[in-house]
């Protein structure tokens, strides 16, 4: 069996940054495994700009952002295998993978970083009634067809879900000559970034129908239309509000799911809300020496944050391999309170003595709120936010001093300011 210090599963933005983080922290024996034919992951099909503002201070396209990281990988001569699919991960860090040239092979790693990214929720998962004709795609599949293969999936489009990929594809399909008739969103607010609503819908006069959903897909061979209806507060279609929209294509942009089948099979503990592993501040999972970062851990809005988190995971894996990591200290589990949908990391080592960037998402769109960290009744931290939305990932930075005072009773919550 081959051996390696570090195996990284996934060569997208998370895997690339994790490799750099580990390498620069002293680990040279790294194998990066990528299932696609090139490095960069989903960034390769994201040819729009808007990447890298935080990381590089400039607006890059997806492939440009990926290229910057790839060059760093090449410079350091970090080894990677393409068209290589990982089939299994064991709790003691044996990675089984397959490709055309090596067949099925195993690597015993000292540490493993999970960086498999996420997949899109499908139409099936929503149980939208109707026929099953051609012309129904997830937004990411349509993006791959248009940007990766050079083919237009259809000409008259209705998009369900206002996630970022859906918004980006509304613009992309329009630029390619398709007519996007509507973007329907079941929630009373969009799940995408505000800047995408402005730049992808408003600039092209594409209607965004909030509190609307598709109740039926029509067409035997190819989609010929959808019925769109208004929904009530609990998301159920309101009778009599149905409207037929003629179209030949339906795109779904209804959420992303961390692709964690490997982690699940290995028995790594997952957070039911994020769909990713439960991790410590160093991004270590419930299994020693197995780390997770990027969209396989929790779905990020911006690749810049993925890179940042992945570098941290890479450095942590290096520390683990070099046995610099004290793992015996006391651990703390943070609780999420009112208004907080999830927290990452969920746990931390109290004596980490480092500042902690705590990511979270809220449950509702709110204005003028306070994000509060309290231990019982005593307040450890608070920060005012003028506006929060589930579509935008937020974070607070806790100083080493606050971190040292954290206990299992600590709760992060959102408080509405009294008027």
């Amino acid at each position, binding site marked *: 069996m081959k051996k390696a210090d570090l195996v990284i599963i996934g060569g997208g933005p998370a895997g690339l940054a994790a490799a750099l983080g580990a390498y620069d922290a002293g680990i040279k024996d790294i194998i990066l495994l990528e*299932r696609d034919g090139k490095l960069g992951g989903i960034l390769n099909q994201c040819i729009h700009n808007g990447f890298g503002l935080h990381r590089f201070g400039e607006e890059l396209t997806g492939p440009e952002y990926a290229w910057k990281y790839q060059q760093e990988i090449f410079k350091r001569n970090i080894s990677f295998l393409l*068209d290589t*699919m990982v*089939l299994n991960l064991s709790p003691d860090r044996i990675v*089984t993978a*397959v*490709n*055309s*040239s*090596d*067949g*099925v092979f195993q690597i015993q790693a000292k540490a493993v970083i999970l960086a498999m990214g996420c*997949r*899109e929720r*499908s*139409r*099936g*998962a929503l*149980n939208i*009634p*109707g*026929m*099953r*004709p*051609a*012309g129904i*795609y*997830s937004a*990411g*599949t349509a993006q*791959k*067809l*248009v940007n*990766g*293969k*050079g*083919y*237009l*999936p*259809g*000409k008259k489009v209705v998009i369900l879900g206002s996630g970022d990929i859906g918004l980006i594809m509304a613009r992309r399909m329009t630029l*390619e*000559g*398709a007519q996007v008739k509507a973007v329907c969103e079941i929630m009373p607010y969009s799940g995408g970034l505000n800047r995408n609503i402005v730049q992808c819908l408003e600039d092209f006069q594409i209607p965004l129908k909030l509190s609307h959903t598709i*109740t*039926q897909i029509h067409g*035997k*061979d*190819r989609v010929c239309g959808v019925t769109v209806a208004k929904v009530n507060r609990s998301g159920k*279609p309101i009778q009599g509000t149905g409207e037929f929209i003629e179209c*030949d*294509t339906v795109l779904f942009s209804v959420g992303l799911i961390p*692709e964690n*089948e490997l982690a*699940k099979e290995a028995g790594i503990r997952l957070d039911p809300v994020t769909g990713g592993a439960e991790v410590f501040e160093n991004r270590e999972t419930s299994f020693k020496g197995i780390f997770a970062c990027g969209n396989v851990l929790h779905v990020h809005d911006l690749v810049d944050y993925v890179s940042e988190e992945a570098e941290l995971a890479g450095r942590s894996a290096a520390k683990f391999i070099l046995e610099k990591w004290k793992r015996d200290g006391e651990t703390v589990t943070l609780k999420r309170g009112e208004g907080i949908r999830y927290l990452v990391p969920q746990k931390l080592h109290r004596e980490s003595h480092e500042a902690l960037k705590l990511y979270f998402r809220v449950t509702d769109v709110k204005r003028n709120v306070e994000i509060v960290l309290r231990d019982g009744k005593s307040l450890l931290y608070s920060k005012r936010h003028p506006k929060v939305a589930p579509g935008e990932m937020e974070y607070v930075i806790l100083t080493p001093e606050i971190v040292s005072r954290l206990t299992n009773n600590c709760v992060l919550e959102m408080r509405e300011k009294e008027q």
Partner: protein
Amino acid sequence: MIYDVAVIGAGVCGALIARNLSRFYLNVCVLEQESDVAMGTTRANSAIVHGGFDAKPGTLKAKLNVEGCGMMPELCGELHVPYRQNGSLVLAFDKEDVKHIHALYERGLVNGVKNLKLLNREELLKQEPNLSEKVLEALYAPSAGIVCPYELALAAIGNAMDNGVHLKLCFKVTGLSKEKEYFCISSENETVKARYVVNAAGLFADEIAKAAGEDGFFIAPRKGEYMLLDKAQGGLVNSTIFQCPSKMGKGILVTPTVDGNLLIGPTSENILDKTDSSTTQQGLEKVASTALKSVPGIQLRTVITSFAGLRACAEKEDFIIEPSKKLKGLIHVAGIESPGLSASPAIARYVMELLKREGISLKANPAFQAERRPLHHCRQMSMEMRNQLIQKEPRFGRVICRCEGITEGEIIEAIHKNPGATTLDGVKRRTRAGMGRCQGGFCTPSVIEILARELGISMEQVTKSGGGSRLLAGKCKAGECVK
């Protein structure tokens, strides 16, 4: 040429009949109106091999169900189709139900179902701990099993083709007449001649009969809606779980599939349109709530797809398997609703008897190969076998469908091996590429490319399921510029 036998319809019955015919020195063709086999009733049903206690004693349904159930293990072995004898349970929730399952037990004994057993609550919950606490008693049929219906039909047609049977797809019968010695079966573009005809046209069997000048029966579509859940739910039950049957069918069941998913459904609704396989809000809600009554722990969040199938129901409460009253040499195999899949091997055998009575001469073909070499299933192979295969053909090392672990080699094989896939859905049914939790999100673009390359057609010509189901509208503007 004049065929000895033409089989109309490539569902599971047509497929098994064709395979039986290929055992003899006969020229046989199968005529199918769709772009692939197994596209009608066989495409979407409960995938259950019933024990045989449900049908009225003395009917063809009762006789052929029990026989078919007994034949299934060996047949699936020869064709290398996964078959699991997981047993079935009919649950009783109240006194009425208890009476009902006792009656079914008695009926099962008359029908000759083996090893039937009534289980009390304690035995039942020990055997199936995830059942509802409210259950009182159950009827257990250990001989029942599960099989994938379209896989069985594909394998049977593939085996028949390997043994010399011709398959003509997209052959929609528009006329059927008899000249002195033979039948003329026409479609829009072609006429096929055959001495004997088997009408196994499923939902359209009445229309074939009508074309032959008969109006003895009428086939009505009855819709059943289903939901398929993630493999993470596949272990909730071991046996197939029924509630008490009614006039409209055997009710909504909860069952594992041979692939390890959990299947719940079907509804039962008489409709008019023989092509309406749409799901409905009400239907899916009913499936969900009824299934939860049997197994309360089902996590509906993990549904990966929903679909509807159509049963081919005759007015008479039995299969119609009989020679035509008008034209000698024509055999009808109609009204094959539940337990049609279970009975299909026995139906195919019975049809041979009827053909003999019609005068066909059967001489065994010594070259007949009963075994069909299956497609490679890389995910089920040992590491050593897999490596040998990849060494011979590296494309078995390139995974295209991540969720189900399907390689390029498997997809190419499905396109070229009898009966070759020509569509996205065809590849999906043969290999499971696109059938996993992402439902083709990642692999669809690659599978379209592979289909276009292997079939020598353009990407735009690739369809989801034949006809007008094209997947792409054309090239992007940028593509035009490059040209």
